[in-house]
């Protein structure tokens, strides 16, 4: 099992969601976060947040998947979020030790999907 964390541009959320649904990844957690990577100092019209420090508004996705879903999930996120410009974001893939579905108390792979 893996936990995929992706940081993307806020306006790309709809497209990423669409791509994820296409590969049948439906269980995602979304939060609004602030941060920056190399985008610091890059001037673009819409990055108004640079006026309030260098933190830019981003969307953070968390998706827990079984091994056989990892590649297509990554590809779907890239497909939805990539523009080729600085600031497109990052994807982190972490090993996931355990997963428990609270309602049924199922554990592991069965609890993920």
């Amino acid at each position, binding site marked *: 099992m893996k936990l995929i964390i992706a940081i993307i541009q806020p*306006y790309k959320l*709809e497209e990423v969601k*669409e791509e994820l649904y296409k590969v049948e990844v439906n269980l995602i957690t979304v939060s609004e976060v602030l941060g920056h990577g190399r985008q610091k100092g890059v001037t673009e019209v*819409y990055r108004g*947040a640079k006026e309030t420090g260098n*933190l830019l508004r981003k969307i953070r996705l968390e998706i827990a998947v079984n091994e056989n879903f990892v590649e297509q999930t990554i590809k779907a996120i890239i497909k939805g979020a990539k523009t080729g410009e600085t600031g497109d974001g990052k994807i982190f893939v972490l090993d996931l030790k355990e997963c428990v579905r609270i309602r049924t108390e199922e554990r592991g792979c069965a609890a993920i999907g």
Partner: protein
Amino acid sequence: MINAGDTAWVLMSSALVLLMTPGLAFFYGGMVRKKNMLSVLMQCFIIMCVLSIQWVLFGYSLAFAPAKGFWGGLSWLGLRGVGFEPYADYAATIPHQAFMIFQAMFAIITPALIIGAFAERMKFSAFLVFTLLWATFVYDPLAHWVWGTGGFLKNMGALDFAGGTVVHINAGIAALVTALVIGKRKNLDSNIPAPHNLPFVVLGVGLLWFGWFGFNAGSALAANGLAVNAFVVTNTSAAAAGLSWAVIEWLRNGKPTLFGVASGTVAGLVAITPAAGFVSVIPAIIIGLLVSVFCFTAVSIIKPKLGYDDSLDAFGVHCVGGIWGALATGLFASKVVNSSGADGLFFGNPKQFLIQLIAVLITIIYTFVVTFIIYKLVDLFIGVRVTEKEELMGLDLTQHRERAYTVLE
């Protein structure tokens, strides 16, 4: 002869009507997604700036200078000759400029109403040009026809106390046209956006209700019994409509919503607007109770079926409510309420209903056609709609480089 009480009331009413535009801004602003909040506030606010200037420079002259033509003419350009003596044709007991500034507030809020139709997707520059042209070529002539000395709808005997045709049907039809031609917002099918701040919607409606007393009771242009009648029926109709919308939702959807009561209240205020100086309190209840039925049907049943994206229901509430109000005036008007008005169908004068109907149809046709032409011209020269990326990122950042809310301090 200038009357101090009348003048005080009209000045106070002007201030009340001005407050309706920021009220409308919060009503609409609460309904959009948070990335577009400022764009709506900005559009409403800049209209207060642009139209205030347009009005004193030439708008008032075009609308109200005496003439028998398409416009009122240019004799009052820059308020030349519009001074502190009364102009008896419009209001015999207040300074002419008091009447002018009262009317200015109507000229401001009318184009602001249209914003509800194209919210979340219009370019700011195009919006400015569109608004200025629309005010000049649609609002000003129509105001002249209905209210101006020499206006042909006025001469025909059409009753419109405070702006059912000139303000609400007019803005509502313009809303329908712009919603149709600008097209739907993106991703609407997969993700119907919820209002980002319902408390703001309710705040806005509260301000609208408050300001509407100036709109309707102020239209008596005097501090007299007619103003009191307008005040009472305005409050009554708003209340009846808010209540009736809640009941409709309760019966149909199982729960009454705050958003519904707020929308119903606005519909009730819209509907009573043309009738406020001509009907008494029981017709006001009927007008209010029924307007929610019509507007609810338009907004919740017809709009989804036809599939146009009137984002904030400027057409569904203002046009539908305005048409009902204008026709209801032809049904319930009574000379007992206003001797200089007319009797309606239920008081033995079916002809008045017909006159109202003709005035409504003329407004609809004229506004539909001219709004369409103005939209197409602006689209040709400037381009009306923002790019897809700008729409997704929101108008606050892309049009104004500001945002309404922070994530963290």
